[in-house]
């Protein structure tokens, strides 16, 4: 696919091995990928497929055992804290469990202030910072003046996840890794979160990467879907192609095992 789309994040031969000797396990095994700017990507895999490990490597939270990650076509360099900080201005994440994503000892203001400081707003007058935070909260339908002096755990799961989006709103990264962003919150709040993420994508022009086990979700949100099994990509392509007309046996099995409501769910296949 040599087209004119701009490369956003790519990797060659990404491998992660945990443990040594007999306890050695390969979580991610020589994975290659090219993520382009503007497309919505989903990486689908069951638990233990290595998708979260891959996400952490993309985020630079852990280092790959082998392979190189390129950011916008340039080899990524995160060898020092300063360089990492620079990289994290471009790539941010939303984690699965909102209840464990926040430091329970820090108030909501300080979470949002961190983001303003990271964008170089440390020297701004306090009024202006408040204005920025209010704007971010308004974007996710939260009221900032009701949140000051509150702790994140005082909010509901959906509200916490929205606060997480407000954080991304302030940071305006190029890439957003959403690791199961809706799996721990109620079905009714799911639509709200997904809508907000899509709206944010249009607003700041970021590239969202969804890491999920929910094939329905991947089908609903993404342009390109990567199916991951045992640390390898077994199938990739457009969402319609991969999910409606899967080629690989693993993908086919995975999709047939998801409960359906319009088509017959065939229980005889297991």
């Amino acid at each position, binding site marked *: 696919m040599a087209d004119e789309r701009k490369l956003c994040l790519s990797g060659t031969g990404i491998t992660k091995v945990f443990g040594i000797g007999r306890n050695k396990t390969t979580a991610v095994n020589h994975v290659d990928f090219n993520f382009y700017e503007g497309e919505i990507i989903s990486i689908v895999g069951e638990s233990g497929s290595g998708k979260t490990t891959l996400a952490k490597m993309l985020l630079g*939270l852990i280092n790959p055992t082998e392979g190189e990650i390129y950011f916008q076509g340039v080899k990524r360099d995160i060898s020092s804290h300063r360089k990492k*900080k620079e990289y*994290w201005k471009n790539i*941010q994440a939303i984690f699965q469990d909102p209840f*464990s994503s*926040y430091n*329970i000892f820090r108030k909501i203001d300080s979470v949002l202030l961190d983001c303003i400081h*990271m964008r170089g707003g440390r020297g701004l007058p306090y009024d202006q910072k408040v204005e920025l935070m209010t704007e971010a909260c308004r974007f996710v339908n939260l009221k900032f003046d009701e949140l000051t002096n509150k702790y994140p755990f005082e909010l509901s799961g959906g509200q916490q996840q929205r606060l997480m989006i407000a954080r991304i709103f302030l940071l305006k990264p190029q890439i957003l890794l959403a690791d199961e962003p809706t799996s721990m919150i109620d079905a009714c709040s799911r639509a709200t979160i997904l809508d907000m993420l899509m709206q944010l994508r249009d607003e700041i022009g970021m590239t969202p990467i969804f890491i999920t086990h929910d094939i329905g979700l991947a089908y609903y949100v993404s342009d390109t879907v990567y199916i991951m099994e045992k640390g390898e990509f077994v199938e990739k392509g457009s969402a319609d192609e991969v999910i409606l007309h899967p080629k690989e046996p693993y993908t086919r099995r995975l999709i047939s095992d998801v409960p359906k409501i319009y088509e017959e769910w065939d229980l005889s296949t297991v």
Partner: protein
Amino acid sequence: MRHLTRQVFNSGKFVVGFSIFVGILLIVIIYPILFPYPPLEIIGQGNFFPPGLYVNVYDSIFTSHYILNLDDATANRIASKLDSEDRLAIQKWLTASGFPESEIDIENTAQLLDQWTNNFDPTKRFPGMTNADRNYFIRLNNSLKGLLSTEGAIIAVENPETASLEEAGVVAQNDYIVVNEVPNVRLLPLGTDNFGRDVLTELVAATKVSLIIGFVAGSIATLIGLILGLLSGYIGGQVDDVIMFFTNLLTVIPSFVLLILISFSIGQEQRGAFTIAVVIGLTSWVWTTRAVRSQVISLRNRDHVNLSKLSGHSISYIIIADILPYIASYVVMALILQISSAILAEAGLSILGLGPRTTEVATLGLMLNWALIYQAPILGYWWAFYPVIIVIALIAFSLNLMNTGLDQVFNPALRE
């Protein structure tokens, strides 16, 4: 924070432990203010004086006497003089002379004495009675006669010129003095120890020193354990390998053996209470390190730490703001346990005679050591060691109770 404090004080165990501990602390602080005796002053000539109110005999003779006619005075006086051996001897003589055994009650002093004075005949002999036995019974009879005498005691003063005794006064059997009027009275609630020192005063001072040793040693151990655990757990890699090598090395050597060896090699002269505290602290950080490390390892992959990294925070900031608060409760509990075990370690070390130097301060362990050397347990001088054991037990009990109470508050799995 206020909520947490309220929860902590809602825990019954913690409150009981805390009250006992604060009680001990208050006694340690207030007692020396109320009774400013030097704790290691030798006041008694001789060892192991029993607990009681000590009244100066000389002073009591020369304070005003009051005559009280109390019915049971004689009986009490005789009862206190007549020991159980004499009572058994009386019983033996009476039964041998044909007195019905069922009528003899050796606890009833008045009745027993009555039976004896009415029946005793020094000329009577029974089969199996030796001359020594007979002489003993005659001596016993004479001393009982002395006790029953109603004459007063004459107090004589030597005339410095003639060197003859002159009567200065008579102390009648029904003379009483008021203790308040006697100028020299000293209460020794726990008697004196082998060196003739007031045990209570010494005990309070020793508790203070032991608590200080506990705090110093506990703080040192917790601080070392915390720092090494944080570094080992958060940084990992080679730092972890090196720290864990030493930690494992120290885990397999019993720390008490190490403690004994180090204390011994320091030598008698250098061993102050503070030195001992430092030595205990330096040998007991291992468990804290391991515990903190495992906590940190489970924390460092948590999402809030990842989020903090993504927000561009430095390692030191993450350790202080994202890791430490989460393990703070754990560290407080470790500190409490360390304090209690340091106090016990000091006691153990001192019993072996490897504790702090003996001339300046007493510690709980040293008091036990002295009591043991002077055979207090064998000779039955309970006041020299029981109170010390009780204080050690109370301190350890209260600290452990506080620890379990805190555990219940901080560890939701243990809540009811």
